[in-house]
């Protein structure tokens, strides 16, 4: 048992340098996932790099391009009440508010959640529906990766060794859109059995924007852009919703685990999708 090193850098560049110098180093954000793993001896990093003094990671700000930049260290409790998240983007604040419990929400960070990437985590589902992007600082400078390319497989993201997520970039919400986040968990605050995020807008009776993402039912959040597109411009009736839900269910790849069986999740997906879209329609003032 060799003792790990510990650093408290103040800038992103310093973090990146520290990470580059040591393959086995790990960043500590809120610690909510990492320290639990340290306690269980599931990871034994050679160096812990605390992000707490890195100013750049702490803010939520609206960029000139209209995208919202949520610093990696912004905590769940602050995302849950962020006034900057409006209309359809509220799907993200709803997801944040359903993570764990008040204590974990006061600790955990959005960058930590995305970096840890538990396939049952809440943010990835909402971020996938929003078409968010991840800004990453690495040995070769900064880059941005869209959510659709970021989540790759079970516990695998596009992060390369030595990469730091600096911020989550959220596009401006479609005009007049509404967001709904649905989560089924065994008990409140548990990791979900299945989650659905919906961002939707309508013009009159016709759907003008639709994004539906499903989580907890496979290695990565599931989105079927073609199926979404096919519904744009039309009325979204029960049959159409059912059809979309069935397609998402067919595309899912859940496993049996201690929370539920794969078969149950397959059945659940269309039902949760229908509920979430129904709620979105209600929010959009369409009771039909």
């Amino acid at each position: 048992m060799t003792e790990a090193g510990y650093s408290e850098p103040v800038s992103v560049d310093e973090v990146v340098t520290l990470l580059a110098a040591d393959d086995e180093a790990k960043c500590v954000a809120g610690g909510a996932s990492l320290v639990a793993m340290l306690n269980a001896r599931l990871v034994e990093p050679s160096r812990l790099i605390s992000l707490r003094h890195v100013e750049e990671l702490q803010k939520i700000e609206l960029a000139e391009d209209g995208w919202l930049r949520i610093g990696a260290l912004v905590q769940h409790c602050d995302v849950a009440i962020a006034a900057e998240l409006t209309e359809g983007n509220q799907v993200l604040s709803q997801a944040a508010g359903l993570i764990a419990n008040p204590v974990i929400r006061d600790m955990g960070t959005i960058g930590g959640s995305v970096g840890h990437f538990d396939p049952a985590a809440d943010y990835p589902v909402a971020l996938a529906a929003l078409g968010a992007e991840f800004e990453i600082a690495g040995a070769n400078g900064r880059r941005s990766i869209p959510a659709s390319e970021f989540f790759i497989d079970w516990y695998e993201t596009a992060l390369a060794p030595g990469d730091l997520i600096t911020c989550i970039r959220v596009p401006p919400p479609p005009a007049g859109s509404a967001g709904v986040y649905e989560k089924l968990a065994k008990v409140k605050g548990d990791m979900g059995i299945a989650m659905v995020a919906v961002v939707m807008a309508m013009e009159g009776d016709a759907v003008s924007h639709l994004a539906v993402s499903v989580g907890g039912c496979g290695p990565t959040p599931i989105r079927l852009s073609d199926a979404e597109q096919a519904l744009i411009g039309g009325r979204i009736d029960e049959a159409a919703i059912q059809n979309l839900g069935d397609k998402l269910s067919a595309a899912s790849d859940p496993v049996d685990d201690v929370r539920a069986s794969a078969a149950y999740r397959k059945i659940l997906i269309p039902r949760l999708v229908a509920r979430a879209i129904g709620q979105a329609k209600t929010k959009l003032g369409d009771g039909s």
Partner: protein
Amino acid sequence: MAADKTTNKMYQVGKSIPKIDAKEKVLGQAQYIADLIRPNMLFGAMLQSPYAHAKIISYDTSEAEKVPGVKCVLTGDDFEDHKMGPFIKDEGAIAKGKVRYMGEPVACVAAEDEATARAAALLIDVEYEELPAILSPEAALEPGAAVIHEELQDYFKVFEAIAEDNLMSFTEISEGDVDKAWDECDLIVENTYETQAQNHLSLEPCGALAEVEPDGLINLWSANQSVFRVQANVCECLGLPMSRLRSMTPKVGAGFGNKMEAHIQPLCVALALASKRPVKMILSREEDFETVRARHPFKVRCKTGVMNDGTFVAREVELLVDGGAFADDSPGVLGNAALMSMGPYHFPNAKAFGKVAYTNHLRFAAFRGFGNPQVTFAGESQLDEIADKLGIDPIDLRIKNVLDKGQKWFGGQKVDSNGLQECLEKVRASSDWDNRRKNSGDNGIGVSAAGHISGLLATGAIVRMLEDGTFVLNTGATDIGQGSDTVLTQICAEALQIPIENIRTAAPDTDGSPYNWGTTASRVTYTTGRAVVGAAEDAVRQIKDYAAILLESSADDLELREGGMVGIKGANKEVSFFEIAAMTHWGVGGPIVGSHTLVFDQPTIDPKRAVARGMPFTNIGVFTFAAMVSEVAIDQVTGKASAEGAWYAVDVGQAINPGLVEGQVDGGYAQGLGYTLFEEMVWDDGRLANPTLMDYKAPGTAEVPYEIDTTIVEHPEPDGPFGAKGVGEITLVTVPASIANAITHASCLRLRKLPLSPERVLNGLMENE
């Protein structure tokens, strides 16, 4: 104390005073096992088996011994072949020769700090030869199945066990003639019900601290429900005389059966003996899940025959129980399940029989209600199925068949206090049953009733007067948080007519406390309370004798007066306990010590009525009763059922402290609700798949409704302390069926397998469509 009861004027009994240890707990100062420190203390850790069933071929401890800070390493080879167990002595301190479940301790280490001990334990190399793992009672009882305890026939058993190969215990009780009775019945319903393993999950993980004095005397502190069972278990499995071991308990972070028998204490003592240093071992949550114990999974086949008017004619219940790797309390759980399987009703023809089998799971054991929640889930679910078929209101059906005054419990024991009918009527009113059953909205309501025992075995109390006339009460009963220290103090204060503050309750200590079998079986208020009353009466007799001298009167003419006084009946003349204490300490007689011991001795089986085989106990206890109505909402999209409210009525004989009774209701409900809806230990082959709180979920504030309504019903138990009997377990027993019945009311869906998970509910709803 009959006089007090009839005049019904109570001084300390019946008051909801705060728990006497509440202040130290809210200040964060109460000391639990993990908080204790001894000078020069080492920390213990263990290595666990990676196999469910395997022969141990050899050990290599050399790497572990090399680790700086490691003081001693023990394996099965270092232990003599002694065995412990409350019913069948089949369990050593550590695996020896073979392992019988995955996670079983196979070696242990004491080191200067916990991290070193844990790391070193993992360096011990054990060579195994894998054996076929037996992971269900069915597999265990297959002819030719691998045998888990080869020496079963040679083990010492405290009862006439019917045991062979993997059959740990068979029990049968019957009355009347069920086989003949089926022909008389208008309606017969038969179903099989299944229940799962539930973890006790006391928030405090198990732990122990052992220290050996230079003369070899051992001091042992541990989280437990009985210092005496700890003493017996440790000494049995280490081959020590009980006189060498002193067992004590700090504050206990709850126990629900998990801390009744041994957990880590034997290993901790062995390490302290070997290292000659104090050793503390605190289990991680994962180790606690994997090695302590859990509620038995049951399969219950229940067949009930009735007349068209709802009169019960016959019931037959067959039980198949997974006992796990060691017997522990299993035979007792099976026996109690059989005894409770008729519910609190009169069946002229009744038969219950069943088997508990050894398997390669961790030991299953007593857990709040021991065996009763499982059979009550079956029986009370089935009563609703019958009520539905007969078109009778479920509460009416129950009231029609409740044991009447003078009727005996299944097996033949007399039932003295029985407030069940009143309980059923009370919950009918409090839940607005009649209206709500008719106008079913989205939510369903369901009823369930039960009887349970309160009693078992031996107990004692010593009441000692101090120099200033105040008292020390010593019972040896462990307060596991339910508040028994407070209740026993109230009983003592009532019997002595003195303020609560004038009594100090001694912590349980096998050196100084009278024997107490333990805080289990809803027994402390009833049995230990009786001992306290007896000891106080003994002290009062002595007090009056000395007061008679001071008052120049006869003891018969004296009476106790509130506040610690003795006076002459009908006269003002009185003398204080202070004066009596002074006299007895300095001049006359000697300091006052009142004592009383008893063993519960009412026979459970009356051989004139019932035939019983393989009964693990002879005298189980008096009977407590409860009825409840549960309200449930079902999410039609996901199938998730959630509890929305509960109305309870419990017959506690006499509530010594009504606030604490409510605490037992609320807590039993919450634990029962988790059991019913989602708690489940899941095994993947022999490996426990969810041994963490991340993956095993207990109910939180969101799952437990605030709307828990408690009505206390008081039908005094003739020999109970001021009429009291226990309440700790029955509040959980009724929960599963009441929720299952409420789900049926809400959705016409009948589920017979716990937990009633969203998946099961949704599948059922979809089948019904």
